């Protein structure tokens, strides 16, 4: 009898040990796009996640990093290509366009106006709320280098971190929700 219990206990232990840990209530999102409407969606999901009691981490990469530029900051010492890219890319979230119906600025202006009328928080307000709620922002170092952005150029945001794909994957694989926007 006692032996049986020991055997069964050992088997059960083995089974439990082999189980993969379940995911955490956590959202990991790649913000690849630099489109205004997609950024609004990303920030609404992230702030909503925190409201739901989840952790939220946003990884800004490629065009997404341009949305993090601070329009008030100018940095020198850039090479020619970086300067070119700097001019071509939107300087901060005030300059972002819609993914759709931008129509030379008219569509984008209309949507912003409509959002104001309908009380939908603006991207600025969403960033502020995200910071308050503790949404984490991590920035792809390779994109920063590629686009020629310097760290001083980015907006102030609490505990902003610079990293690579390994950091995203470490977060993503323990998260119950992952998205690429």
């Amino acid at each position, binding site marked *: 009898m006692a032996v049986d219990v020991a055997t069964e206990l050992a088997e059960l232990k083995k089974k439990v040990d082999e189980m993969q840990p379940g995911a955490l*209530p956590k959202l990991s999102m790649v913000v690849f796009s630099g489109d205004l409407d997609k950024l609004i969606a990303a920030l609404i999901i992230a702030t*909503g996640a925190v*409201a*739901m*009691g989840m952790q939220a981490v946003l990884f800004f990469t490629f065009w997404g990093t341009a949305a993090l530029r601070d329009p008030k900051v100018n940095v020198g010492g850039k090479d020619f290509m970086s300067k070119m890219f700097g001019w071509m890319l939107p300087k901060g979230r005030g300059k972002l366009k819609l993914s759709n119906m931008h129509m030379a600025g008219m569509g984008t202006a209309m949507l912003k106006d409509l959002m104001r009328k309908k*009380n*939908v928080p603006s991207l600025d307000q969403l960033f502020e709320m995200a910071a308050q709620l503790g949404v984490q922002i991590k920035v792809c170092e390779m994109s920063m280098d590629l686009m020629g952005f310097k760290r001083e150029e980015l907006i102030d945001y609490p505990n902003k971190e610079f990293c690579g794909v390994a950091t995203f994957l470490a977060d993503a694989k323990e998260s119950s929700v992952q998205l690429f926007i």
Partner: protein
Amino acid sequence: MAEHDAVKVLDLKGLPCPMPVVKISQEIGSIDVGQVVEVHTTDPGSLADFPAWAKSSGNEIVETKQEEGLIRIFVKRVK
């Protein structure tokens, strides 16, 4: 006496998503466990979102009343 003995009213009229759930998540801590807050919202999405939020955060929707141009949701703090 307030319905469901609500100890306070949270006025979220005119605020669209994600504000209603963000606000309730920030305000629920201001009442005691077992107490009820009465939420006023004009966002029809809240009818689905508040139960989802309550389930996820471990709180309880005591009652939801739909009136002309106003939704009233009674939320009890459980945790």
